[in-house]
């Protein structure tokens, strides 16, 4: 495919033609003034930390509230348990009560979490590139075909996984 063969040198040439200089963002006086100030990055980072901490706490509170649902009143004591004198409570009864309370606190439907595929795709592509390197190295070292075969099988599995992820992406896009 001539287009693919020509693409990389052409792009490389165009990239090298981009201007290397241009203007400084600011002059030396401004550089010195900024150098005397506390680092801008530190100030920005402090505000970012505060923002992130607030966001994390808010998300955690919302998630907890969503999962636990409305606040429940304590269960009334079981008559059998109430009749028992203090100190003679049966452990098994308490466990039953707490288990029932815990089960009733669970959501009826499992939580659905939507995760992007970008990370998976990049990992798979990196893995395929790594296997390709190993195959090339094995072939250059004149490794017998039997030695290369497991690598090729591994590569086929990775490519298959990548195709599945891409297919899932396509289906998800189509359903939107």
């Amino acid at each position, binding site marked *: 495919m001539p*287009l*693919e063969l020509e*693409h*990389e040198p052409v*792009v*490389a040439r*165009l*990239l*090298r*033609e*981009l*201007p*290397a*200089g*241009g*203007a*400084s*963002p*600011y002059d*030396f006086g401004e*550089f010195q003034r*900024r*150098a005397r100030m506390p*680092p*801008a*990055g530190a100030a*920005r*980072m402090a505000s*970012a*930390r505060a*923002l*992130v901490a607030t*966001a994390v706490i808010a998300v955690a509170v919302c998630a907890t509230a969503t999962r636990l649902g409305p606040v429940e009143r304590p269960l009334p004591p079981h008559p059998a348990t109430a009749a028992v004198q203090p100190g003679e409570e049966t452990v098994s009864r308490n466990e039953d009560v707490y288990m029932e309370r815990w089960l009733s606190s669970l959501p009826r439907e499992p939580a659905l979490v939507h995760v992007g595929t970008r990370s998976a795709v*990049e990992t798979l*592509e*990196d893995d*395929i*590139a*790594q296997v*390709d*390197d190993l195959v090339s190295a094995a072939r250059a070292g004149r490794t017998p075909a039997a030695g290369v075969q497991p690598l090729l099988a591994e590569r086929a599995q990775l490519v298959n996984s990548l*195709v599945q992820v*891409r297919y899932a992406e396509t289906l998800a896009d189509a359903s939107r």
Partner: protein
Amino acid sequence: MTRLFEITVPDDLRVRACAGEEGARQAIYAAVAPATFSLIRRIVGQTSAAEDVFQDTMMILFERLPEFRREAPLGAWLRQIAVSRCLMHLRSPWRRVRLCLEGGDGEGALASTLVTAALPPELIDVERALAALPATARAVLWMYEVEGYSHAEIAEAFGRSVSFSKSQLARAHVKLRAWLEPQGSRPTCLLS
């Protein structure tokens, strides 16, 4: 236009700058600042973030100038510092958190921040396509194709494998090709 790694400064200027002479420092700043900022902006993308990285880089330059051993041009030494600071910025967890909070990877918005005035149209396209790449792919592409780093050097700079560098470069080329090709000639069955 001279690339950063080609820039040299006279020895006496460097010595005077090391001694704290203001004029010498100003002259060195004037010599290296434009190319340094250009490199940082191309790797980092956003101008505001690039200014922070640039400030850090120039401060490190003047702090460590007495350690410069003249084994390479001053620009090449400064380029190492600049690239290292850029990659630290890209790896920063705060940057990732900010991108998450902003939604998406935020890379698409970078094109508008680049100064593209006074460039031929084909270079404006390349500048925009470069800015639209994900930050890691853009950094690898720039380091390999323009700065002349090898895959092994890029892998070492990122703390990753050579395969990582190769796959990022291939990914960047695929995206650039999709961006730069005329609509009619694009393949109809692309996986990416």
